[in-house]
């Protein structure tokens, strides 16, 4: 079984994100970039499936600027077998990414595609679902546990009310939640081996996809600063304020 793992290059989770002065986006120049943490969980799950003998090949895919090759290399160092880079300077929105992934899926014929449930930069939480719709494959989103049995896969999903378990028929789409696994460190020997693993370089046109954005970003602004709180004298006063001022109870 072949597994496709899309990995996105995002601002590192430790970096405090800053809005550009002109409000067109966020500052990425000179900022540390890393693999989206949910995608890292996706790579880890794929590697575990391969170690268990359930998968035979893992293909990591990234899209965007040439430096996305570094994100692929990280996936290769964790245990993916080869990479595909779709290189473009264009702004990539979830629908475009889903269309590009669909084209790659049709070419590569994976049985399973494991995506992060969302990327920590724009938190869209859309690509996995869109890809499932475009391919007409079943989807198990927010997965905290997956088990492969024959031609099917059982997915435990973290939903608002608790846990939901769904059974899907392969090929299928999985999106990962935080508790699916704890990703490993890429060991030094594997970092060195990653250098020798192949990365295919494609352009959106090679896949017959026009990645033009369908949404326009009007403005990016920082959230308003938190206002100073007030001290209340008693519980009674607190309850009163919650009722009359905050109007939450």
């Amino acid at each position, binding site marked *: 079984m072949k597994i496709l793992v899309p990995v996105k290059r995002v601002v590192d989770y430790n970096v405090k994100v800053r809005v550009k002065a002109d409000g067109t986006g966020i500052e990425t120049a000179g900022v540390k970039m890393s693999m989206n943490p949910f995608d890292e969980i996706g790579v880890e799950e794929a590697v575990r499936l391969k170690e268990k003998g359930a998968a035979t090949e893992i293909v990591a895919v990234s899209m965007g600027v040439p430096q996305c090759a*570094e994100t692929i*290399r*990280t996936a290769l*160092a964790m245990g993916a077998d080869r990479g595909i880079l779709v290189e473009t300077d264009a702004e990539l929105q979830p629908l475009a990414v889903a269309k590009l992934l669909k084209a790659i899926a049709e070419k590569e014929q994976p049985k399973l595609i494991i995506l992060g449930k969302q990327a920590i930069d724009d938190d869209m939480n859309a690509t996995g679902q869109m890809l499932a719709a475009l391919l007409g494959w079943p989807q198990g989103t927010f997965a905290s546990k997956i088990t492969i049995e024959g031609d099917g896969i059982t997915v435990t999903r973290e939903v608002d009310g608790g846990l939901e378990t769904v059974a899907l028929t392969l090929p299928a789409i999985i999106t990962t939640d935080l508790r699916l696994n704890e990703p490993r*460190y*890429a*060991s*030094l*020997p*594997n*970092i*060195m081996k*990653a*250098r020798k693993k192949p990365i295919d370089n494609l352009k959106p046109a090679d896949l017959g996809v026009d990645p033009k954005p369908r949404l326009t970003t009007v403005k990016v602004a920082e959230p308003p600063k938190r206002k100073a709180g007030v001290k209340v004298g008693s519980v009674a006063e607190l309850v009163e304020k919650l009722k009359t001022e905050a109007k939450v109870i």
Partner: protein
Amino acid sequence: MFELSEEHRMLQDLVAKFIDRDVMPLEKAVLAREMSGQKSALSAEEEEVLLGKCRELGLWGLDVPEEFGGANLPTVALIGVYEEQARTCVPFTFPPDSPNLHMLMAVCNPEQRKKYLEPYARGEAQSAIAISEPGAGGDPAGMITRAVKNGDDWVINGRKIWVSRVPQADFVIVMARTGEGKRHEGVTAFIVERGTKGFNIEREIPMLGGQRTYELTFDDCRIPGSQLLGQEGRGFAPMQLRLTVRRLQIGAWCIGMTRRALDMMIEHAKQRVTFGQRLADRQAIQWWIAEAAMKIHACRLMVYDAAAKSDAGKDVRTEASMVKLYGTEMATETIDHAMQTFGAMGVAKELPLQLMAQKVRTMRVYEGPSEVHRMVIARRLLQDRR
């Protein structure tokens, strides 16, 4: 300037994660031990766990040649590793310790390679080196410990001091005078194995930073001729090589220590309010932050430059002196500023700052005191000018 390769950056990331997740959590225990007057070291169990993880991650024998199963990384790749390691006051380095490795690689004959270098390179054997004497520290060429040839053997007599890692060392490299030569001529390196008759550990000396060194005596200590390292009377140069390796490492360690002090200073300055104003809004603190950031940048460039030259086979003794001197003074100053920023907390034994301050104080002395490095740098410049 060169750019670090992708693999070497990934290695540094790996070490950073390892330090943050596996080593940093042990700080509290190490500080508690130092606080109670014990050695500021890891317990055997803690060390065992970390060594196990290192083996798993391939963080072992980083600069060991491939023929001995190492990763054979260049010095530039190790700088980031040392930098990340030194962000914590937990004393832990990836085996084997580099300086003696490089000295042994330079001088061992084929038999010695098998017997000493290979187990050392695999991390199965530990070593120490005895250079300083009560009358010869910063000026090791003044040493008087003597080895005299007796048949096929050598007999060593003398006293060595400030030797680290002695109790766990399977062998000690002992520098001793053999010929008639003065100063650095006629100094030879020998290997003395643990338990050799006449080799005594006189006493343990507690040092700042919860560290320990040892005073050793050699009393008609007889060793076979096969334990002479390199060439008779030519031991000084490989010893210097070893010191150069350590000095570059110290420069990189100092970057890590300074980064930690700066991070702590920034975090605290943004939270702490005095007289209605955040410390971060005060010029004194801002200048300390700016100084520290600027010096870290300068020191990093210096260390990478020296490492790249060293990898290219150039003699970097002067650069190594500069790096060691600049790094330790930068770390001393920044850690002190961080302690001052923290006020009473900065001098509390619970925080790592005071332990880092003690450690960097010892670093300004060992592997050549700052003043000797200034003298050496100046002398080379004076000699080079017509």
